[in-house]
């Protein structure tokens, strides 16, 4: 069976969930060979093996942390040359997309970004994408070279599928471009203690209707009662009420949770672009004409300051 390269997104050896989802998809197309780079690369092997990686290629070098993107492209290219895979799959983070795109151009291949599903096809993997703010679903294929495809979080279930996961050191020679962009300093994002926005099963968001940073606790309390991540519209972010890293939409995060709860959000096309593929959508908005109500499975026309705290109390009471 052909091998498929899977680029591993991990933090100091802890594999992030989208990579495990990627392994599920990779197994439909071939035998997953994982590529893990940087600090803790070898520590990813056990988890990757549990989820189907037949091999784990690892490399660590200071360049990965000290320079932007290109050293990782050099490494992924080395893995590509060592394995000659049938496809290369990369998680659709901002960095993942850039790594994948540069690799594609280097190896003379086409690239598909932000797939939400992958199936095996007669002429290679077929990728499903959600486009035009999720108004359309397309099926595409890479028609030149080895398919390079990036896949959005929450696009496939995580499945246990034990495999060998043999660790092999990958030898990487960095090219001239590798040291082009220096990462002078790095400030890690402070964890809110809540689930990761793009990975969460439930997202509770607040918009302009929340009317002030000091009111966002209403949204956070509902989120915490449900074990959810907190999102925000751009209006709320631009007003400085909530961090940009929590923005949902075209220029923020794209989320696809089981449940999305929109509070005081009108539902502009750019917001919908980031949440329209959520399985179940509910909204609280005082304007019955708000476009968000076109999307909802359940909507409450009312003041969020009345409805949301009542909901939070109910959730807490029922969960005991």
């Amino acid at each position, binding site marked *: 069976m052909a091998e498929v390269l899977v680029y591993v997104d991990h933090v100091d050896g802890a594999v992030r969930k989208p990579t495990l989802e990627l392994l599920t998809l990779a197994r439909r197309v071939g035998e997953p060979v994982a590529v893990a780079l940087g600090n803790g690369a070898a520590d990813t092997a056990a988890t990757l093996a549990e989820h189907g990686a037949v091999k784990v290629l690892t490399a660590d070098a200071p360049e990965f942390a000290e320079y*932007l*993107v*290109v050293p990782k*492209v050099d490494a992924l290219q080395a893995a590509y040359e060592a394995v000659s895979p049938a496809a290369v799959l990369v998680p659709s983070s*901002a*960095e993942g*997309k*850039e790594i994948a*795109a*540069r690799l*594609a*151009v280097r190896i003379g*291949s*086409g*690239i598909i*970004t*932000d797939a939400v599903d992958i199936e095996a096809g007669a002429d290679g993997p077929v990728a499903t994408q*959600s*486009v*035009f703010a*999720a*108004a*359309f*679903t*397309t*099926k*595409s294929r*890479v*028609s030149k070279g080895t398919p390079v495809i990036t896949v959005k979080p929450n696009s496939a279930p995580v499945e246990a599928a034990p495999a060998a996961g043999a660790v092999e050191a990958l030898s990487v020679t960095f090219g001239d*471009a590798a040291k*082009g*962009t*220096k*990462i*002078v300093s*790095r*400030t*890690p*994002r402070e964890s809110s203690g809540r689930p990761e926005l793009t990975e969460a099963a*439930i997202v509770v968001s607040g918009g302009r209707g929340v009317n002030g940073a000091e009111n966002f606790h209403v949204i956070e309390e509902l989120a915490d009662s449900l074990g959810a991540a907190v999102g925000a519209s751009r209006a709320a972010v631009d007003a400085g009420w909530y961090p*940009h*890293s929590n923005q949902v939409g*075209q*220029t923020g995060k794209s989320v696809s949770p*089981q449940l999305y709860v929109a509070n005081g959000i009108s539902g502009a096309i750019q917001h919908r*672009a980031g949440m329209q593929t959520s399985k179940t*959508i*509910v909204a609280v908005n005082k304007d*019955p004409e708000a476009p968000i109500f076109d999307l*909802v*499975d*359940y*909507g*409450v*026309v009312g003041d969020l300051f009345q409805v949301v705290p*009542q909901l*939070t109390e109910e*959730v807490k009471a*029922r*969960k005991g």
Partner: protein
Amino acid sequence: MSLRIVVCVKYVPDATGDRHFAEDLTTDRDAVDGLLSELDEYAVEQALQIADAADDAEITVLTVGPEDAKDALRKALSMGADKGVHVEDDDLHGTDVVGTSLVLAKAVEHVGYDLVLCGMASTDGTMGVLPAILAERLGVPQVTLLSEVAVADGTVTGRRDGDAASEQLQAQLPAVVSVTDQSGEARYPSFKGIMAAKKKPVESLDLSDLGIDADEVGLGGAWTKVEDAAKRPERTAGTIVKDEGEGGKQLAEFLVSQKFI
């Protein structure tokens, strides 16, 4: 020496219009009005600010697109850019990102540059990868997705807010930079700017001017193929209730019925 800035701007169908696909499964550019991608306005704005801070700078706005794409150039020129370059060729119809990056790379080299500025993503394709590919093709540093950028003494610096961390980046010119919508609101063209833009030069180039073979681009030359495009099924109309004091409880009932609680 003058700082040569090239801003890549895309002409896109208005996102608030009813966008769809043409019969050949390319983006239908006739059905919906086009405009300068809002996300590229941020790149034009940063170019203007960088030019202001430099002793001497020239800003060229560059687009690859159909006839109407000139509108995007005009808008950028009315904001204050100095000249425009429009790459237009019938053979470009259906070109994908790999092909577009080839054309842009040749065009940027044709113009001459110290700094290439891009938006974070186009509002139609929303791939957000072209700047990285452009840097790869040009063989210069990529300094992308910046929410803050500055250029001084041949060095570009900026802040990239990533998923896990916020990074301070630095590279030598020439370089390719992309900026996010956090980089600072774009200015509105003034009346004077709009009038002045009418007199600014716009150079038109076709594929042969850039030494590109028609079969390297277009729908036929594309590296990817869209095989099917289907309108997402309308969501079935949900239940909407008016809060009469029990709205939160009713919503809780719904969440229980869907097993979320």
